[in-house]
């Protein structure tokens, strides 16, 4: 169960090509992301719609010429999962309060990630309950100063740290490749392999690599062999479940759209039941409904 945790959302056609390459490589799920600088407004509500893959495969007259490899999956019941994600880059101290205030807008996304640009912002992002991931821009020369105590606090709260490997594929800028190696080893040193994630923040589907290639890459970041597979399978699913609990109201109630509920769990309509019953039974039910309404107290409001 491998899941690709970061791929930028550029429209319907590019998303379909990305899904077809990922299914060939061996992944089972995708998270499409979107980036924001500093300020969160009301216009940033999630407008992501899941792609209907069966229709796109069967349309012969469609413009999607690449044959999708979803039929390679042996089980037809297995579906390719799709989620949504927000990336927020914070560079000033004044905009941290927005992460607490705009809670309802952040709840429309499945995963929320933060890119702090200084150590003071990194200290305050640890205690926020509206966040799932803290990640870094690894192509810069000097990384943020990280301390052991702050990282341990974040792990107790349940946050995750992330490494992105898409900045290694810029051959004209060889400095970016050197910086990612040194910074990634630094991140692994402070977290000791706990609550780590590996993702690719890619634009093109060419910069994607298979899951076993990524595991081999992780061994060069000083991650031991046993944890390398756990990072891709178990940790990526725990992030999604962390995002699901973040959406609920203190873990008790959750509100969903009606379209997402499958038909089996929906309540049966009254029309099917009325056909089997006689007319007399319908009248008895109506009388009982009237009696129940009368029993409830009526509240009057005085102005």
């Amino acid at each position, binding site marked *: 169960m491998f899941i690709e945790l970061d791929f930028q959302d550029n429209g319907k056609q590019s998303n379909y090509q990305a899904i077809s390459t990922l299914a060939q490589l061996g992944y089972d799920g995708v998270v499409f992301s979107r980036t924001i600088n500093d300020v969160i407004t009301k216009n940033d509500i999630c407008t992501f719609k899941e792609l209907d893959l069966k229709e796109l495969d069967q349309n012969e007259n469609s413009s999607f010429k690449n*044959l999708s*490899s979803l039929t390679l999956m042996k089980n037809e019941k297995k579906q390719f999962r799709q989620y949504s994600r927000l990336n927020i880059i914070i560079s000033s101290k004044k905009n941290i309060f927005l992460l607490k205030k705009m809670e309802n807008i952040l709840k429309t996304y499945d995963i929320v990630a933060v890119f702090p640009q200084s150590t003071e912002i990194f200290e305050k992002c640890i205690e926020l309950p509206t966040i799932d991931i803290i990640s870094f821009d690894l192509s810069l020369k000097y990384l943020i100063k990280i301390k052991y105590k702050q990282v341990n606090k974040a792990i107790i709260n349940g946050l995750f740290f992330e490494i992105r490997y898409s900045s290694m*594929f810029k051959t004209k800028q060889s400095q970016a490749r050197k910086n990612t190696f040194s910074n990634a080893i630094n991140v692994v040193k402070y977290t000791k392999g706990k609550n780590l994630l590996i993702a690719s923040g890619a634009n093109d589907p060419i910069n994607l690599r*298979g899951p076993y*290639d990524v595991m081999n890459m992780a061994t*060069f970041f000083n991650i031991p062999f046993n944890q390398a597979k756990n990072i891709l399978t178990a940790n990526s699913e725990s992030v999604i479940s962390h995002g699901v609990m973040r959406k609920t109201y203190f873990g008790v109630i959750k509100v969903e759209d009606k379209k997402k509920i499958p038909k089996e769990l929906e309540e049966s309509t009254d029309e099917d039941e009325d056909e089997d019953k006689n007319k007399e039974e319908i009248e008895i039910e109506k009388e009982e409904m009237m009696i129940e309404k009368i029993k409830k107290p009526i509240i009057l409001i005085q102005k």
Partner: protein
Amino acid sequence: MVRVKFRYLLGHVRWQTTTKMNSLDISGIYHYLKNSVKLNFGEYAICRLGWTLNVKQYNPLTGLFIVRCSRSQMRQVWLSLTLLDEINSQKCAISIIHSAGTIRSCNLQAIKHTNSSLLVAKSLIQIKNEKEKYQKKKNKKKKTKKKKNKYLPNTLVKKNKSKK
């Protein structure tokens, strides 16, 4: 008994554009592979590999190739293949499917990999044929069983044999 042991890696090349690269040879891949090992791991890694680095097979139609390397340097050659970006000024991506100790097992795995891509074309045709068959079965009438005639004698009754 001391024996030099190798590892054979099965790789798959994926291009950005669909233009066919007929000009690419085995020597071309070897040239670019060696440069990427030198870039990422230095000259010491090449000297340690030595004569064991070799490209055995390459198929330009499907994009599969087999690389040989010594057993201790397998992971370094693997990483240098994933970080390979450009070949002949065109962007590409390499993913490795299988690693084995003999060429024969690599070839068997390559057959499975091509069979799965053939299944895509097969399954789409199969689905159409199965739908037509199922609709034909529905339209057929059910065969009626022959009813037994009650007034015929039953000749299959067994007689109780008495012991002598």
